[in-house]
């Protein structure tokens, strides 16, 4: 590149016991979109935190406009025009959009009163530019996650950011919201803003990135120009090996119905009901827009949320589920969407997480036998290929993929009849993703019925035997594998 806007040269960063970054180079020109890809732990976040002033590099130099700079803090970063939109949004939902945009630098009148008119007018300029036609006075709590993200973007733009770092911006957006965000990114690029785009979603990278820089184990693994970007090439650079990508065939046994859910109504959609059945050995995908009521149905079936009505039949027998305890006793398990909050207790060891749902099995006379627990936890970690120093490591210290495997380990140590996966691979890197798919297939092959809720179209279409599509609390259609394609699913998802 002739005149890069930003250049990072030979960046090194060490943490105790790990070299997070080893002589990493990165550059971006004005008005470029550069995607940063890599497995979890490859060093993407560390590199961006150095650029954003959160971490200090141990080696290397950073140049902005060809001049060497030191970014010692987040405010240094914003002085150099670097804005950061984090994966976990940094917004205050109790304040208005305009207050969020100008937080800490509100325009004043008389030197001490907030000039609300100017505050709102100024903020609305940036909001409008991002295609968000709302009043600056709107409280953030009334906005969707996608809209809140736009507010955060507006904040970065109002700070005159020339380089925007976006960390997994689409991880909690619906398909249409993602498309809108990608359009905004393209528009920003037209206006000369450079964007560093971190994502696990290869389709998005392909759509918007001028280049993709791939990191692996804290080192540069390679660069692909726009024309060279394709799924296999990126994955190969990310994992350093070829990943077998197979689409599964129909392996559901024609008539062995196991679980039937009838007339399930949840509090979120009291007027709609959900009925479906899953066969032994089948993976039933659940597609739909975020908020279509898929997770609500799953939580009701699992008993953590009380349904307004409905029944669950296993092998023709009606089972009563009023709590997760009931569901677990009947072999119905949920791998929840929010694994860090609902799936795991982060501050306790892997061992205690794995044995928690069935502690009685490792106990006698009400007392826990730690040796039995350790044996089981080790066995499960080995079976699921959990990468952790030991089963006594806290779940918090694992990568997303390994955390998800520990959640799975909780249930696979029992005898599942129905496993409900809610967004099983969200925020999980490519390597771990394919391991989880393989596990799902193996479980199905062993006769477990599987429900897989997913907003990732590729995942739903690639992994399901049938696809149920939900819209506003009701199932609008169930497609057989042969009929399931992106267009058909989307049509049902928007309610047609």
């Amino acid at each position, binding site marked *: 590149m002739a005149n890069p806007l930003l250049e990072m040269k030979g960046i090194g960063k060490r*943490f*105790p016991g790990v070299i997070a970054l080893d002589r990493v180079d990165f550059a971006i020109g004005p008005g470029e979109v550069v995607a940063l890809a890599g497995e979890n732990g490859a060093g993407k976040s560390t590199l961006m935190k150095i650029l954003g002033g959160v971490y200090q590099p141990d080696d290397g130099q950073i140049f902005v406009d060809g001049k060497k700079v030191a970014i010692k803090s987040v405010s240094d970063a914003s002085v150099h025009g670097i804005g950061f939109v984090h994966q976990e949004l940094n917004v205050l939902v109790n304040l208005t959009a305009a207050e969020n945009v100008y937080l800490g630098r509100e325009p004043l009148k008389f030197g001490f009163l907030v000039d609300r008119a100017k505050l709102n007018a100024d903020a609305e300029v940036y909001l409008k530019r991002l295609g968000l036609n709302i009043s600056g006075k709107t409280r953030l709590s009334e906005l969707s996650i996608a809209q809140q993200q736009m507010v955060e973007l507006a904040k970065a733009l109002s700070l005159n950011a020339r380089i925007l770092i976006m960390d997994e911006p689409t991880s909690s957006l619906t398909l249409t919201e993602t498309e809108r965000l990608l359009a905004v990114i393209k528009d920003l690029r037209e206006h000369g803003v450079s964007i560093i785009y971190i994502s696990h979603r290869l389709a998005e990278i392909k759509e918007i990135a001028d280049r993709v820089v791939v990191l692996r184990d804290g080192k540069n693994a390679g660069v692909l120009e726009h024309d060279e970007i394709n799924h296999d090439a990126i994955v190969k650079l990310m994992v350093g090996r070829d990943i077998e990508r197979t689409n599964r065939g129909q392996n559901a046994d024609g008539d062995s119905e196991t679980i039937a859910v009838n007339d399930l109504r949840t509090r979120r959609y009291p007027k709609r009901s959900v009925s479906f059945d899953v066969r032994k050995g089948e993976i039933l995908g659940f597609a739909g827009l975020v908020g279509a009521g898929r997770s609500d149905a799953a939580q009701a079936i*699992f008993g*953590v949320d009380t349904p307004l009505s409905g029944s669950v039949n296993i092998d023709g027998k009606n089972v009563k589920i009023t*709590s*997760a*305890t009931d*569901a*677990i006793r009947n072999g119905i398990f*949920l791998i*929840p969407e929010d694994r860090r*909050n*609902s*799936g*795991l*207790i*982060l*501050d*306790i060891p892997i061992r*205690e997480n794995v044995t*928690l*749902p069935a*502690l*009685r099995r490792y*106990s006698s006379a*009400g*007392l*826990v036998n730690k040796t039995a627990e350790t044996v089981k936890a080790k066995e499960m970690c080995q079976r699921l290929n959990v990468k952790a120093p030991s089963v006594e490591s806290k779940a918090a210290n694992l990568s997303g993929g390994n955390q998800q495997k520990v959640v799975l380990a*909780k249930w696979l140590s029992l005898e599942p009849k129905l496993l409900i996966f809610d967004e099983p691979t969200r925020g999980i890197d490519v390597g771990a993703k394919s391991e989880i798919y393989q596990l799902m297939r193996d479980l199905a092959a062993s006769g477990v019925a599987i429900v897989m809720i997913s907003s990732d179209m590729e995942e739903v279409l690639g992994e399901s035997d049938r696809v149920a599509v939900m819209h506003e609390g009701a199932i609008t259609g169930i497609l057989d594998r042969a009929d399931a394609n992106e267009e058909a699913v989307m049509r049902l998802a928007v309610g047609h």
Partner: protein
Amino acid sequence: MRKELGTFVLLVVLCIVLAIMNPSFVSGVNLQNLARLIGIYGIFSIGLGLVVITGGIDLSVGSVFALLGVLLSIFLVEWQLPAAVAVLLVIGITTSLGVFNGFLITKVKIQPFIVTLCGLLFYRGLARFVASDETKGFGAASGFETLQSMATGSVAGIPTPFIILVAISIVAWVVLHRSIFGRYLFAVGRNETAARYSGINSDIVVAGAYVLCALLTSIAGILLAFYTNSISPSSHGNFYELYGIAAAVLGGCSLRGGEGSIIGILIGTALLQVLQNLVNLLGIPSSLNFAVMGAVILIGVVADQLLRQRQAARIAT
């Protein structure tokens, strides 16, 4: 473990300093009295510790002491009930208050602070009303001397409340650190949602902690009533819940829940009693009693926090 160690070191240092400055600290009488108080305070501090581990709090303990003390005196002295019946009644009534707390907190979903703050006011008022605001006592305890000796007696020179504490601590240690219930208690305290998603009936676990706390409160309350032998309904047990909470926190329980140990709570209790003793033995004006305790607890907590920040900084770089 490290958290308990810090408090333990502080306790040992305080004891050594105190022994040097006033040798009567290590006299038999003083040590016996100290052990007796540690026994009484330790029992209800363990109860409060269990509640704190679930992320809750019980502010009503002191008022419950007043209420159950008054009732106990009425049952034994005025109604002349048999000792065993009176004790069982008092334990039963107090424990049912714990059930009530647990119900309000888990089913009606009112914050523990509010529920037990109302308890603090309500039971105090009730105690004063029941006793017609008169100070109650047990006189010479004629007819229930054995019961009284549980609080005031000794076995082989060891005060009975201390022996009771040791027995309760062993049971509580097994329950908290080895049993399924204990594991659930920590799990619910750490992350109630994830515990529920693992099939734990978190309502029962949380309510169980309040019931156990009430049970231990009733035992400690009976001992305390006999120990003071004078229950002024407006002041008996004032602030005692705070001693228990302070002991639990000094011993490593986090008010956010999910952390703590029986050993820690015991060390915390002992530390508070030694501090009380220090005020008396060093001739510090007793009006400064609370000030000294507050200051030492604050210093302890600040030192702990600084140490932890330094450790975190070391890990980060």
